[in-house]
């Protein structure tokens, strides 16, 4: 029997087998992510973090729609009044008579947006850059990482002030500035992980299976990096929110009448003795968000840790 005939026969046999197999229900595998999700659900702190985050996101998204006050226009009858249901200002007003609840919600939108967008920017640049440098290795890696070191050496505040001077004050500049600095960390972490991944047998197996380099990076390296990256993202978002707060505190961040949690905390701190509520509410929201992200990050790290498997 020739090899060709044997092959045809084998294929026919496979078809029969396949038909039989279709009758049985295919068993669904539990992926590593599903396993991780089950572990995350058992972690009470992480679940609480997710719940708090969802609550805050829903509140800042829909809260202003239910609130009759505007974040810019003062209530001429109420300057610096404490929280009260009678006046309708549930978190009181600031020194200019603006509704604090409205301002905390609007500020929350800005703070979360900065956190998420700047992190996404750093995520895309950092993962692509780090994975390419780590996978190609050698001289390319050396030059790419020296470039990262050089950018890293720029003082962050100097960089931000320079951007402000050249382009004027603009909320998008903050996204750019923070994103442009944060991807450096991401690139370093991803490169380190890639270096350890590329010596694994399954990468060589992919080469033997006819995969191109790009295919290996996108289908094998990056999916295997996700565990680390997800954790790092959950810890970067609060860090970015804090950086934005710091910039706003210095007067380099968002500009009046727009606000952010950092700017509100700054204003509140100046009126601490006369109007403590104007510090208490934004600070509570800021702290709750930071805690929630950190608990979630810790939970994700534990859930995705391969040693647990």
């Amino acid at each position, binding site marked *: 029997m020739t090899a060709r005939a044997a*092959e045809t026969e084998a294929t026919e046999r496979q078809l029969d*087998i*396949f038909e039989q197999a279709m009758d049985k229900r*295919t068993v669904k595998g539990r*992926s590593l992510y599903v396993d991780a999700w089950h572990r995350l659900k058992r972690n009470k702190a992480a679940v609480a973090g997710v719940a708090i985050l969802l609550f805050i996101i829903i509140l800042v998204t829909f809260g202003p729609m239910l609130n009759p006050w505007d974040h810019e226009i003062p209530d001429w009858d109420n300057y610096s009044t404490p929280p009260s249901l009678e006046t309708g200002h549930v978190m009181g007003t600031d020194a200019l008579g603006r509704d604090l609840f409205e301002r905390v919600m609007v500020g929350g939108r800005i703070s979360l947006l900065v956190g998420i967008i700047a992190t996404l920017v750093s995520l895309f640049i950092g993962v692509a850059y780090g994975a390419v440098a780590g996978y190609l290795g050698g001289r390319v890696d050396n030059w790419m990482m020296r470039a990262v070191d050089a950018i890293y050496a720029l003082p962050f505040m100097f960089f931000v002030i320079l951007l402000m001077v050249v382009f004027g004050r603009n909320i998008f500049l903050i996204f750019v500035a923070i994103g442009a600095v944060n991807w450096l960390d991401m690139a370093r972490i991803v490169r380190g992980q890639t270096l350890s991944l590329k010596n694994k047998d399954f990468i*060589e197996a992919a080469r*033997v*299976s*006819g995969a*191109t380099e790009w295919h290996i990076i996108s289908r094998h390296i990056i999916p295997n990096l996700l565990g680390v990256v997800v954790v790092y993202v959950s810890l970067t978002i609060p860090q970015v929110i804090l950086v934005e707060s710091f910039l706003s505190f210095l007067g380099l961040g968002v500009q009046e009448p727009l606000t952010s949690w950092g700017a509100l905390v700054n204003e509140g701190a100046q009126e601490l003795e006369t109007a403590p509520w104007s510090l208490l509410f934004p600070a509570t929201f800021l702290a709750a968000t930071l805690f929630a992200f950190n608990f979630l990050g810790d939970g994700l790290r534990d859930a995705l840790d391969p040693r647990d498997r």
Partner: protein
Amino acid sequence: MRAPILKVEDLSVHFRIDAGEGLFRHDYQTIKAVDRVSFELAPAETLGVVGESGCGKSTLARAILGLVAPAGGRIAWLGDNLVGKTEDEMREKRRQLQLIFQDPYGSLDPRMTVGQIVGEPLKNFFPSMSKMQVRERVSGMLKMVGLAPEQINRYPHEFSGGQCQRIGIARALVVNPRLVVCDEPVSALDVSIQAQIVNLLKELQKKLQLSLIFIAHDLSVVRHVSDRVLVMYMGKVMEINDSERIYRNPAHPYTRALIESVPIPDPKLERERARRALGGELPSPTHPPSGCVFRTRCPFAQDKCAAAEPPLEELEDGTRVACVRYAEIKGELEL
């Protein structure tokens, strides 16, 4: 012998290692991981490759697949020289040349399902295949290696080591290769599972008319599967011989030492056996001995062994051996 499907001539693979790093200069040392290895492989033949850890077996396998660049020599695959081919050209060749790995878990991407793992070579080599065709072929392949096709959506960590090795075999065979290089496919498995996997490979080889290069450091496994056996030591070929003859009548002192080191699973026989254990340490690969590399540990070594490197000579019965004293010590080597 039939016309060879694979003909390796004087294949060498060298590695450079850092010996010290200064500010302005690098010092390198060269390791000859594979040094002028030659052999042939006939269609549907199994060649066993044995040798101690670090003797260059795996490097030889990777050089044949084009995964490491050879320093010299020829690899004639169906008359076409693979040495010096670009990565793109090699990729095309790997449809016919496949590799089975030693580590059953490490060689499977933990984030991919069995269906994706086994289907990957199909998608790469036959981009025109439809999803349904890929799925059919993968299911058939899983069945062929003794796995249930219903497990197609499962992940590697849900399988045992032996099952993972079956997945690796399915991935290698799914594109219908003509040569499969097995790089110690069973040394990471339990003894009972080893037999299953070895028998599966033998069965598939017969069914699909595959040529196999079977690398192992366990001689009893190699004896079971191989038609011929190649013995390596420090990157060089010591002996190539028929599987049956090599176990009865080794031609090289190193082959004899390897065979003698296999334990007999019977305490009485094991105690009665007169053993000449191989003394000494493996010499440093950066500074190999002059002449015959085995002379520092060889019980038959003489001054002339250090003088020149022994050539691989073909004897009248087809045995090939690299030993200058072969004719003198022939009688003493018999087991």
